């Protein structure tokens, strides 16, 4: 499939999805870097690998099951021990809307 050109708009859109605020200088820099990186990776386009199976892991991964018995888990205090934003035993987050 045709690959898109990396424009400042593409970088802005991706940054928004990735929850990053970029300055106009950064947008320009990343546009150049990404274009160079993807151009350098164009060699891959020569490969015809439609019939090859993808390897999502280097080794076969099998599901692991354990007995369905309760185990000791992290206490509420410990789970909350790293946050500055907590209230009445809950994490406190920013407003939703």
């Amino acid at each position, binding site marked *: *499939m045709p*690959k*898109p050109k*990396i424009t400042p708009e*593409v*970088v802005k859109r*991706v*940054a928004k*999805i*990735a*929850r*990053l*605020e*970029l300055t106009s200088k*950064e947008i320009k820099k*990343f546009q150049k*870097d*990404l274009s*160079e*990186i993807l151009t*350098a*990776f164009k*060699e*891959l386009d020569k*490969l015809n*690998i439609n019939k*090859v*199976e*993808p*390897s*999502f*892991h*280097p*080794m076969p*991964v099998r*599901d*692991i099951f*354990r007995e369905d018995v309760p185990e000791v888990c*992290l206490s509420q205090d*410990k*789970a909350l*021990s*790293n*946050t*500055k*934003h907590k209230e009445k035993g809950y*994490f*406190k*987050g*920013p*407003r*939703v*809307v």
Partner: protein
Amino acid sequence: MAKYTMSVKEFLEESKKGNINFLDFASALLEEVERINKRFQLLREICDIRDRLYLRPPLNGLPISVKDCICVKGVQSCAGSKILEGYIPPFDATCVHRVKDQGATILGKTNQDEFGFGTFSTNSGYGIPKNPLDPLRSAGGSSGGAAGLVAALDFPHVALGESTGGSISAPAAFCGVVGITPTYGLVSRYGQIDYANSLDKIGVIGKTVNDCALILSIIAGKDEKDQTSIGEKKDYNKSIVTGSRSDQARATDLKGVKIAIPKEYFQNLDKEIEKEVWNAIKKMECNGATYEKISLKNTKYGVAAYYIIATAEASTNLAKYCGMRYGLHGKLEGNFNEYFSSVRTIGLTEEAKRRIILGTFTRMAGYRDAYYLKEMKVRTLIIQEHKKVFKNFDIIASPSMPIQPPKFKDIEKLKPVEHYQMDFLTIPPNLAGLPHLSIPVANKTPIGLHLTADHLEEDKLFKIGSVFEKIR
């Protein structure tokens, strides 16, 4: 201090006999580590180990440093990133739990490229580790602090490192020490702050092959907390070929070992590296090994495949850092998106942002098949190609890095894509999840011989590596 200048082996023997006063040892060690750290910035945090009262065999308090991306209970663990500043894990990673269980003492957290994003450890949020062999040069990355500390510290010590695309071999080579990156899944990743799940592997950096075998034997093995953990485990200490043998016996130590030399790995190299690695191969030949030149033609796609896969996975892994539950916090202002974006923008370095943007882009609707899925297929080709080689050969030999440790002022001039190309020798075994060992061609020399074996054949690497250590 000089009384504690001893190998890990000597420390274990002496402590077993009760000849080590641990408080005295720990005080001298801390003093030395602080001195070294002022000079080379190898640790982000040093643990006060003097209060250890009870020493347990077999390691009897052996100091082990832990790469910053591996969680240690009660010790700040940041993966080199400001976005995790202040994070104190309430639990130990499985590998840390296992070494503690065997009596190790955790010495501190070693500096690294943020989340492993780099080849030179210049992308850390906590200063740049320097190479103890020459402080104007890089210690390699991303486990630069770990390899640097192994090189700089004359006390008995072993480092836990982590590799995604070469982060154990690169710094081990640059600092003139030994690094083992095991088969994917051999060591549990539970408690490791992820970079890329299908690539991350915890391994060991030490002064000798023996030190690496000792600690890998402890941390390897199944862990039900990690879905990708595999059950295989061997006593790698048994693979070590021990010393004081006659020249005649040594001359046949590698009899029957067949080495493959991929021509693609001997292109675009520093001339001295090329010469030294060939010398190393000839020395192994003199000890009974045979070698043959081969081709691994698909490895030329390795760098591209790796950076697409690794950044795609990293961009999802790093989505959880948003300033709410741990690490860097901001003032709770704005809505969800505004708050998360503001914390992430402050807490992540430029290289992390670049990789997140590249990874997010290649996973976007419409492009996933063209990029991410395609690279997973390239990985299949690279695995198959290696498996074919291992039908006829025991190991693959090459240099660990194409260049010697660069000066910091030269690293600054590299474009990101040139920076990524430096990994072309370490990426193929990492993509294929194959175990590999970097071992200096000579004592305290920043040139590594890279040996790669088939999946789960770490024992072969330790055997051949321990022989090479004696004949180099």
